[in-house]
């Protein structure tokens, strides 16, 4: 953007009624005297409107930064307060006792574990499927159908998380019973799918992972599809001209170009899965047990713990929840910041625009 900050000055700034007669007025105002010097060295003229408007827009940007800083500062203040009252180690304690009377012992270990495991399951399930769907929309589907599908994916990305949660709890969970039994029978040897309590309600981290996978699928698909559509046509046509099959075109020209985009799309999806509250709160039956048997009911995530404990927590109990919220904030900050840095780096050296 190479627009000069100060426009050539006038004595009479044009009013709102019409822009077309601005030059006439300007020339008439300058009259007979030579105006060249004043336009070149006329930096001193600063309009109130310009100053106000640029100030307002810069101010809005600063407001945004202040909000981000305030989130970090206020959460940190309350967290420090809570952690100093904590009788156990905040990072390694399994319990979450914040009731009045009992000694305050709480820790982030189980919550962080549950958050990471459910998000990981969601990523493993959603990302390959999302790449497949994005490829389908960008390269396989008939063109007219592809456009409609793009709209549908965008629409689905807007479905509120509470609806996913409701559906997950009342439809998916009952249907997971058979899947869990099957996994237990044939894949119990992997330890992960072994059920300590066979036949129990599948309100487990695995079910949470599945509902999160369905939730992040549209957003990952939408971002990945955008990247796939940006692949230079020249690259694809060059590969086709060399006799490549469709898959070889994708492997040699589409995927290398889109790799960093796929990574950042996945990380955006991960960020969403990590912070998801309601879908987890409705599906999971929480308990503070750290177990790798992910099909057993139990476990807990940070966001879900805040939502379910909040009603009963008072005073320091609230501060403890805020401390866990700060941990979540930092984790999502790192994940999203990482994703954006990957995208930004890609912008710099992808000089190919055809």
């Amino acid at each position, binding site marked *: 953007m190479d627009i000069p900050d100060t426009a050539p000055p006038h004595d009479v700034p044009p009013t709102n009624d019409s822009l077309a007669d601005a030059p006439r007025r300007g020339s008439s105002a300058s009259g007979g005297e030579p105006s060249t010097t004043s336009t070149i060295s006329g930096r001193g003229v600063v309009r109130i409107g310009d100053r106000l*408007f640029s100030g307002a827009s810069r101010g809005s940007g600063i407001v945004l930064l202040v909000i981000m800083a305030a989130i970090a500062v206020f959460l940190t203040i309350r967290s420090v307060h809570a952690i100093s009252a904590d009788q156990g180690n905040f990072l390694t304690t399994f319990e979450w006792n914040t009731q009045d009377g009992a000694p305050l012992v709480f820790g982030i270990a189980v919550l962080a574990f549950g958050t990471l495991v459910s998000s990981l399951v969601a990523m493993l399930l959603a990302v390959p499927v999302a790449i497949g769907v994005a490829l389908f929309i960008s390269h396989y589907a008939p063109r007219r159908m592809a456009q409609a599908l793009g709209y549908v994916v965008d629409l689905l990305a807007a479905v509120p*998380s509470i*609806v996913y949660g409701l559906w997950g709890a009342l439809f998916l969970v009952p249907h997971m019973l058979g899947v869990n039994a099957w996994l237990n029978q044939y894949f119990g040897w992997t330890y992960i799918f072994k059920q300590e309590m066979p036949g129990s309600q599948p309100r487990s981290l695995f079910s949470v992972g599945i509902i999160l996978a369905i939730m992040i699928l549209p957003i990952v698909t939408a971002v990945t599809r955008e990247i796939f559509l940006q692949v230079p046509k020249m690259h694809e046509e060059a590969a086709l001209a060399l006799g490549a099959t469709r898959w070889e075109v994708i492997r040699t020209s589409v995927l290398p170009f889109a790799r960093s985009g796929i990574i950042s799309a996945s990380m955006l999806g991960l960020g969403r899965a990590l912070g998801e509250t309601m879908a987890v709160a409705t599906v999971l039956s929480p308990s503070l047990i750290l177990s790798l048997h992910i099909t057993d009911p139990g476990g807990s995530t940070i966001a879900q713990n805040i939502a379910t404990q909040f009603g009963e927590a008072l005073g320091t109990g609230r501060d403890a929840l805020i401390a866990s919220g700060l941990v979540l904030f930092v984790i999502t900050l790192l994940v999203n910041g990482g994703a954006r840095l990957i995208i930004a780096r890609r912008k710099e050296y992808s000089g190919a625009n055809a």
Partner: protein
Amino acid sequence: MSTTTTSPRRPSPLSSTLTERRLPRWTPLATLLGAIVLAVVVGMVFSIQSKLQWALLAAIFFVLGQYLLARLVEGRRQAKNGLITSLVWVAFMLALLPLFGLLYYTISKGIGVISVDFLTHSMNEISPNQTGGGVYHALIATLEQVALATLFAAPIGILTAVYLVEYGNGRWLAKAVSFFVDVMTGVPSIVAGLFILTFWIMILNMQYTGFAGSLALTILMLPVVVRSTEEMLKLVPNELREASLALGVPKWLTVVRVVLPTAIGGITTGVMLAIARIIGETAPMLMLVFGTDLINTNPFKGPQSSLPLYVYQQYSAGTPASQARAWGGALVLIALVMLLNLVARGIARWKAPKASR
């Protein structure tokens, strides 16, 4: 191009691959039918109950069958190509199944609940076991909260985008704002709720009100508005700005009278899509608006409800009557979101031809 006529003596390697044996075009369909039949047979023989397993079996048979056929007739490279094509199709089906299942299930469960009574009554003096009651209080509250959030987020967001595009010029402040807008997009809604809770309710000692909820929604809405507005402003051709400046129009008037009107369609679309995103936020509402069964039209005083919160509360109550209401609320919510999306797309399409030159 299909036949090489130049040198009949020595066929080039290219032409030999072009004339290789190919499977007829109807093969995938035939394989699919075969796979389904096979899956049904296997399902019957081993008496597999779940229809989902039948579908999975069919999918596996289809992929394998396609691969083997292509391998036998067309060779390794074509077979691999076919394998990936089948996998992409399977991924597509696999994704559509739950997503449309969700929509279908919500609509079929919710449509029976929705009536004029449901839309015009609150939950006043209705116990979880009773049928009746409605979403009116929640609907009103949500609309007010979202309107307030839009009132804050849209001007700040649009002005921030104007700063980034028109005044930023790669300054460090612009770079910082741009980066933190991206980071802010990823702030979990529950963290935004916690922040307003600490700042507004615990430190400033304010009440639990709909207004507190709309403050949290503002935080969630801001980055979306900034991003979409920025994209739209970047699309405004530079010639327009230069022409306006060359006529001696001050820069701020150029932005207000030339740049923003050119991009107004896209900006409106962006704001509407942002509204559609925040209207379903539950987590911050859970903490901030307190939730009530009564109609409270004043978002600045006293507890309010919220449509997503209503869905969650009715689900949590756990009785058949309340869960039916939860589905009804969910359907109203989805309908609102879809409506906003469609209107946004409509505006985008309506304004699009003017912007293109």
